[in-house]
């Protein structure tokens, strides 16, 4: 097991194996971030790959001021932000519609599963539901939330990353969380009502 610094140093010398080792270590984190931000597995895979390729291309400009992971987070976040902006321009409305539709489908399916593997399934369902709720946030709020609660950046770091003021970051995080809270608890109530009816 090499240290991260060692791997970065070797990557800078053009050692592809060392960089592949770095990928192996961080691919899940980077992919997860991309997924949380875009809400779409195909896009997330593309963007995560693109992020690693960019990192490899410009590894020379990486100075060990921050950790390699932080640097990677910055790259993938920027890529996702551009992607979200592009999407916003093209078809935001259709995206929202699709999500609303899925929500209702889920609500109908849910009560039919009650025992055994359902627990596992529910876990997965919950995860997906959270993600879907995140997807309904506008890009600005989604970015703030993911940077804080998934990547664990400080408010100052988020402000720098998103190029906005600390006050804006604060209010965006707070509103995003409250939105999520309200949405998820509303759905939970709906579900418990449904399970009482059918169960």
């Amino acid at each position: 097991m090499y240290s991260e610094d060692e791997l970065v140093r070797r990557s800078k010398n053009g050692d592809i194996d060392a960089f592949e080792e770095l990928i192996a270590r961080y691919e899940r984190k980077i992919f997860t971030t991309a997924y949380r931000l875009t809400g779409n597995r195909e896009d997330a895979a593309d963007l995560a790959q693109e992020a690693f390729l960019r990192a490899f291309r410009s590894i020379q400009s990486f100075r060990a001021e921050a950790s390699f992971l932080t640097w990677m987070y910055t790259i993938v976040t920027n890529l996702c932000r551009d992607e979200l902006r592009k999407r916003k321009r093209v078809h935001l409305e259709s995206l929202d519609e699709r999500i609303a539709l899925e929500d209702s489908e889920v609500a109908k399916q849910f009560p039919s599963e009650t025992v055994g593997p359902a627990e596992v399934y529910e876990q997965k369902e919950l995860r997906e539901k959270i993600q879907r709720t995140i997807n309904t946030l506008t890009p600005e709020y989604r970015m703030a939330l993911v940077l804080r609660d998934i990547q664990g950046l400080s408010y100052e770091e988020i402000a720098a990353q998103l190029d906005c003021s600390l006050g804006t970051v604060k209010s965006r995080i707070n509103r995003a969380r409250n939105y999520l809270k309200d949405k998820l608890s509303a759905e939970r109530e709906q579900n418990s009502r449904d399970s009482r009816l059918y169960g």
Partner: protein
Amino acid sequence: MNCERICEQVQDNLSAYLDNALTAEEKAETEAHLASCPACRQAYQDLQATVQMLSSLEEEIPPAGFRRELYGKLQRERNVTQTIPLYRRLVERIRGINRYQLIPVAAVLLIMLVSLPLLMDSANLGFGKKSEVALEQKALDYDATYKTKESLRTAPAAAPDSVSGSGFASSSEESLRKTPTIDFNVMEQPQAPLDAGTAIDIERKIIKNADLVVAVESFDNAVSAIKDKVTAAGGYISSESGNAAGTEGIRNGHLQVRLPATQFEGFLTEIDNVGKVKSRHVYTQDVTEEYVDTESRLKALSTKEERLIAILANSGKLSDILAVENELANTRSQLESLQGRLRYLNNRTEYSSININVEQVTVSVQQISSDGLAGVLLKAKEAFITAVNNIIKDVGKLVVFISSALPYIILVAVVGYILWLVLKKRKQV
């Protein structure tokens, strides 16, 4: 009421409190409020649960083949950078450019494509025949528009036939100023020598003429203003006439002005201050050839005269003397006529002629008083049309200004776009 506001404020700060991102003072306030307000406490707990749920979300697993694919891309990337020459990489890069990124580039290219011929056209002005033809065409166009406007404008006051249909009539001051200037450009172009032997140091002899029709409000004021200007320019009035026509007593006059050629252009510009120049015809005549011709014939004749005198001194026979004397008289008369011609040409080229027709256009005071309301309407109509004309003129000026600024705008846009691209790139990585 007040309490609600506090709750709202506290709830705004709850996330930051949770993340320990509040100032000590805010933190103390929030804690104090949470201790006393069950609703806010509930909100806080819900929020905490949500955050916990978020942070406990498991990492997502990339799709199968993610890593294999990425390694493949990496390998290709390295191969590309190592073995493929720079221009290939450039081509790849261009291919990778997003379609939307190309829109500004395409726009700039389009603008250049459209504006280039226009710019070329204006650059060509004053370069001989081709532009002259274009100019004439333009003048004709102006003539047409001018006539329609002018007839509209003058119809009630004066008969439309007072409008002269000269070839260079125009309605916009801009073009009026341009017309003579461009003409001068044409004739000031050094032309091919007429005759290789005599071409050295020949001063060009050019006669400049102009015919003007000027519409004025006060005939007497205009005529005296023109006379003042002529005197100031060192010229003279060679003929003057005037008459009053019709029951309204509209006065017309004709002035023929001779001006030093150097004052010609300045005078034409100044005439604009006297009244509205309705028509302008500037034409020139290049008499260099005739002048040179006359000069050399003069030289030959004076040589002949000298020789005849010499013969006369030597000859003895009366019949010879008479014959020579006869020939000498003949030669001298020719000589004088040639000298006269030279003087005339000199005068014509040193002094240019300007024919000015002065026309009175406004309705007389008597007419307004005899036809009060119509006069007001007339004036209003006239003012309205003048205003519209001014607007058209200003729009024209604006178009000209924008066209002249266009190259700079394009330059700035291109530089800005490149800068933007560079900044964007830097931010991304």
